[in-house]
């Protein structure tokens, strides 16, 4: 993989996670207490840094074949999950990811909760909301950076891409003090799901002992074919969704006639 392809893949994946984490921190800070939300954010970053220090060398110590099998398998399962959700959203079977809506729900829940001070944290609810949100989304970032970076033998570039994505999204969130609803998150998730599935397919098969025709150039076929499969499934779901909506709008007699 070229350095730019590695950078773009990790940047895109981490930007999606950063948008979600930013929404949660903004909700915790706006509705409750900024100091507690920021302590939660910092604590989660420290835990994630410890995870990187602990996991990074362990992953790097694996033989490359075993690493590709292990990491490829995980990426493939992970990527198929992302792609499945993105296809269902685009096909109309799952609500679109709406940061405004999520922000409103988080705000309402945060405003309803009682305030409790613990140690240096003035508001425990804001702390835990922010900590959990950043930790969960951050774990995915760590996973993506370590798997893509180690597999490609270039963890620093993967780390820089993740850092750039997080700084960009966090700065935009801090400036706007509002959820980043205009980011085309669903389209980005679709693209990231396609990339994770494609790289998982490539590395997983290679780790299991397969020789790809054309070596790394096989990715140039795997990525568009995965995207084509996903787009085809979205088209099929949209067709099916329209058909069932039309049938539901008709009466029972017409419906059984149409189904015949």
């Amino acid at each position, binding site marked *: 993989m070229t350095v730019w392809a590695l950078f773009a893949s990790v940047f895109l994946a981490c930007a999606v996670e950063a948008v979600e984490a930013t929404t949660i921190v903004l909700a915790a800070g706006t509705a409750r207490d900024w100091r507690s939300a920021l302590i939660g954010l910092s604590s989660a970053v420290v835990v994630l840094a410890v995870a990187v220090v602990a996991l990074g060398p362990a992953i790097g110590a694996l033989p490359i074949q075993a690493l590709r099998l292990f990491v490829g398998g995980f990426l493939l*399962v992970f990527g198929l*999950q992302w*792609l*499945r959700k993105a296809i*269902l959203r685009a096909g109309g079977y*799952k609500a679109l990811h709406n940061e405004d809506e999520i922000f409103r729900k988080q705000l309402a829940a945060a405003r309803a909760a009682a305030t409790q001070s613990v140690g240096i944290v003035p508001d425990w609810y804001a702390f835990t909301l922010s900590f959990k949100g950043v930790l969960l989304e951050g774990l995915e970032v760590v996973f993506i950076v370590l798997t893509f970076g180690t597999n490609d033998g270039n963890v620093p570039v993967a780390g820089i891409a993740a850092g750039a994505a997080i700084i960009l999204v966090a700065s935009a969130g801090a400036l706007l003090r509002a959820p980043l609803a205009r980011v085309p998150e669903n389209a980005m998730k679709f693209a990231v799901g396609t990339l994770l599935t494609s790289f998982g397919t490539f590395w997983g098969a290679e780790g299991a*002992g*397969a020789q790809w025709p054309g070596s790394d150039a096989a990715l140039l076929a795997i990525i568009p074919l995965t995207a084509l*499969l996903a787009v085809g499934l979205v088209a099929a779901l949209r067709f099916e969704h329209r058909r069932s909506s039309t049938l539901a709008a008709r009466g029972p007699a017409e419906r059984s006639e149409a189904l015949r």
Partner: protein
Amino acid sequence: MIAGKLKAFGAFWYDFIIGDDWRVAVGVVLALAVTAAVSRANVSCWWIVPAAVALLLPGTVWRAARASRTRATGSSS
């Protein structure tokens, strides 16, 4: 108390790695195992994982869409 925390910890990792459809994870593991077995026989095996993806993705999407339709029909009736 500890059992509950361990259960929650396990549930978190299950959700993080396996997700909504365990069949996908099982399918991926099987595809990689078959690829490893076939590659030892010096037979071309690069196509096995892409073929598995081409079966697993429509399968999991179809199951989720069907479940969504069933829920919608159930709530409207």
